[in-house]
């Protein structure tokens, strides 16, 4: 009787554990960066976004490729606006801290540049969505940060 109860309890706990681990993002298997970028881009109208090569991504962000396991970046190819979407997956927790710091510094440098060049674009940069889920970080500079946030939450669910 006691053994039966123990077995049932173990089975129940295992089932609960499996159920919980199936929900929410897994740090070991984040959504591919390209898919996150596509979801954010679809959620609102952007200027003519063009994808950046790995070489350009590293040049613009100044992030060592060894810190990342996946990356996707698109910017306004016309250069009329500051709009862009960046999604990066860090290799580990330590790399994540460096990646977040680099993205934050990148956004700040753009704010400084655009303040003199195109002040109208500064609010988009100041209100840019910078969010992290697990080892994945996204920076979205857009006309509607609310839509950007909800697109991220939906794709990261």
């Amino acid at each position: 009787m006691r053994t039966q109860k123990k077995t049932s309890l173990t089975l129940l706990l295992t089932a609960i554990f499996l159920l919980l681990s199936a929900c929410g993002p897994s740090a070991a298997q984040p959504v591919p960066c390209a898919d996150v970028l596509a979801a954010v881009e679809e959620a609102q109208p952007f200027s003519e976004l063009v994808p950046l090569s790995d070489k350009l991504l590293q040049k613009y962000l100044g992030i060592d490729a060894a810190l990342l396991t996946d990356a996707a970046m698109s910017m306004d190819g016309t250069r009329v606006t500051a709009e862009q979407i960046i999604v990066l997956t860090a290799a580990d927790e330590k790399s994540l801290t460096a990646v977040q710091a680099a993205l934050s510094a990148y956004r700040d440098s753009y704010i400084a540049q655009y303040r003199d060049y195109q002040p109208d674009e500064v609010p988009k940069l100041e209100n840019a969505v910078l969010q992290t889920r697990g080892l994945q970080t996204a920076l979205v500079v857009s006309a509607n940060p609310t839509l950007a946030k909800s697109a991220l939450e939906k794709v990261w669910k």
Partner: protein
Amino acid sequence: MFKRILAVLCVLLILPVSALSQAYGPVVRSAQPVDAAAYPPPAVPPCERVPDAYFDDAVLIGCSLMTGVELSGSIDHATFVARIGMSPRGAMNNKNFPSGSQYLTMADTVIALAPEKLYIMLGSNGIDIKRPADVLGEMNELLNYLIAALPDTLIYLISIPPVTPKVRVRYPYLTETKVATYNLGLEELASLHGIYYLNVYALLADDNGQTLGKYAADDGYHLTSAGYQLLADYLYTHALPILKPAQEKEAN
């Protein structure tokens, strides 16, 4: 009588060039690594599309327009040194480009790279608030500085793109006439310095000197991706062969 006529002709020939030089101040001439007899500057004739490797040792400098070319990925082998808002004066004076623990100007960054080929597209930021003649004076200073430091570099000046009337929403003093005037001055400067001029403006402009619809971005100032692609393609099909040292000696 004949000698007098010859003397007058010589004065008439020299006078325009010296007048131009005076308009810009001192001018440093480039000793381009190109057969100048076969390719007299500033014109660059069309050629078969060069391979990507032509741009392995090329540096392209400019403002946001040049960042648009970079983002298009069309000249992937080149090195770009470009920054939004850059002007000829800014290229000489503003220390924006990190180099180790310090920051360098665009001009010094290029000199440190010591490219075999240098493409310059600057002036749109400049003529938006100043007279073309003033910005051309600043471009002359930049060219003097670069040519003195890079005597063996093949230098191309790229015309700035046209604009549309929409541009005056953001840049009220930027007109189609100023752009055309500036580009004429660029061609003159190229001739004075013995360097080359790439007239992409002619490809992008309609009969009114405005950007053709499919190449004009919404702000009337920048280009669409198709516009940047067209500009990049022009560089591939207007490229000069570099003389190797032995060939250079023979040509001279």
